[in-house]
């Protein structure tokens, strides 16, 4: 646990980008996790960990305020998130379980639209980004003709276009092949080195230097009977 609160990266500034203070989420009166104190600095890559159903997705959605009910506080550059909401949104890129790809559009059209939501990009930028994720030659195919992994890759191509500081990614590796994952990890490291931060969930251990871990099992609500039962079931 000590490793979580002392930070070993050296390129960070003094104030954290994001600060969780006594942060906790409750769903259906079941405490998922509580009392999280955690700082995320520029240059961090944070993996939110925990077995299925511990609340990783819930945490990410609360952070992006898609789910506004939580306990404790989240600070964005020292200011309460609800006050700095606009400023935070303009620095945020979120890719969830559902990536927002329209099947009738082509990869190029999809990416152009998604990237226009937080930034302007030229057409050649877009084509470059698609080429980066291995979709060269597929730019003009309707997306329903692409495979599961190819569709995910379109959403991930946003990472090459965005200027957002904070990347929040819920299981970005889903359906992506080995070469793709390797490339993504290099990108995360690069983004961190540039002064951004990445918060991701994954059940595959990412191969990233200086990865910080936020393990939800450490914070899981102790008093909830069902939660402990599940852990028992996992470990058998």
């Amino acid at each position, binding site marked *: 646990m000590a490793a979580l609160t002392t930070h070993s990266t050296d390129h960070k500034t003094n104030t954290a980008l994001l600060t969780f203070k006594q942060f906790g989420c409750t769903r259906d009166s079941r405490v998922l996790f509580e009392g999280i104190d955690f700082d995320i600095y520029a240059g961090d890559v944070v993996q939110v960990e925990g077995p299925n159903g511990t609340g990783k997705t819930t945490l990410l959605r609360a952070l*992006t305020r*898609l*789910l*506004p*009910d939580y306990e404790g506080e989240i600070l964005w550059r020292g200011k309460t998130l609800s006050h700095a909401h*606009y400023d935070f*949104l*303009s*620095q*945020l890129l*979120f890719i*969830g*379980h*559902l*990536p*927002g*790809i*329209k*099947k*009738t*559009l082509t990869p190029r*059209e999809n990416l*152009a*639209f*998604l990237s*226009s*939501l*937080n*930034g*302007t990009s030229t057409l050649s930028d877009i084509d470059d980004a698609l080429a980066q994720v291995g979709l060269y030659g597929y730019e003009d195919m309707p997306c329903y003709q692409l495979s599961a992994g190819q569709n995910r890759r379109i959403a991930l191509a946003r990472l090459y276009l*965005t*200027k*957002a500081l904070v990347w929040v990614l819920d299981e970005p590796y889903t359906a992506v092949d080995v070469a793709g994952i390797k490339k993504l990890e290099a990108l995360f490291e690069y983004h961190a080195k540039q002064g951004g931060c990445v918060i991701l969930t994954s059940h595959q251990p990412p191969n990233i230097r200086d990865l910080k871990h936020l393990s939800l099992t450490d914070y899981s609500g102790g008093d909830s009977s069902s939660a402990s039962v599940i852990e028992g079931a996992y470990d058998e």
Partner: protein
Amino acid sequence: MSNSQSLSATLLSVFRRDLVIAFRQRSDMLNPIVFFLMVVTMMPLGISPQASTLAQLAPGLLWVIALLACLLSLDGLFRTDYDDGTLEQLILSPQPLYFIVIIKALVHWLTTGLPLTLVAPLLGVLLALPSDGFIPLWLSLLLGTLTLSFVGAIGAALTVSLRKGGLLLSLIIMPLYVPVLIFGASTVRSAVEGIPYTGALAVLGMFCALALMLAPLAIVGALKMSVQE
């Protein structure tokens, strides 16, 4: 930086995308019209084929059916965006959702209400609508369907996270549609009977202005609530 991204560029991109989607499935754009046409065809079959009977019913029937056609096309307004996660992205965009929502409702009207209005006179012929009724029908539908699109979008936003929204949506929205229906139909009826109809038309215009301003607020709230499910 993305801060410098102007609102209008995002709005334009939402507008263009929604239109492209509608045009790509070109048959979808024709659907409200065809639905309108078909229900109009069924009425004589169900009721009576006589022109005199039909002429009497025409103003009301045309309006009720146009309203149904609008209603039924609402379901898809936010549904697909919700299902594939686009809605989350729109909400997380730093641009105000208020304007984005206006654009989406507008595109809905352009692809359903407007074409419906354009073919309505043809259907007036089918239902033997007296010729005095055509211009009021046209005007009332123009204002009315725009209102319907905006008001209906509230219902679409409220039901978007429910799995089988279709009929629940009708249930929520239909009471809100009633005033529009009443004034719309009576505009046409008055004209056919030779009574001045500008009053009813003015009320429709007022509804329209009201809906354009207030509905987006409700829609934004409803959408934000829907993604929390």
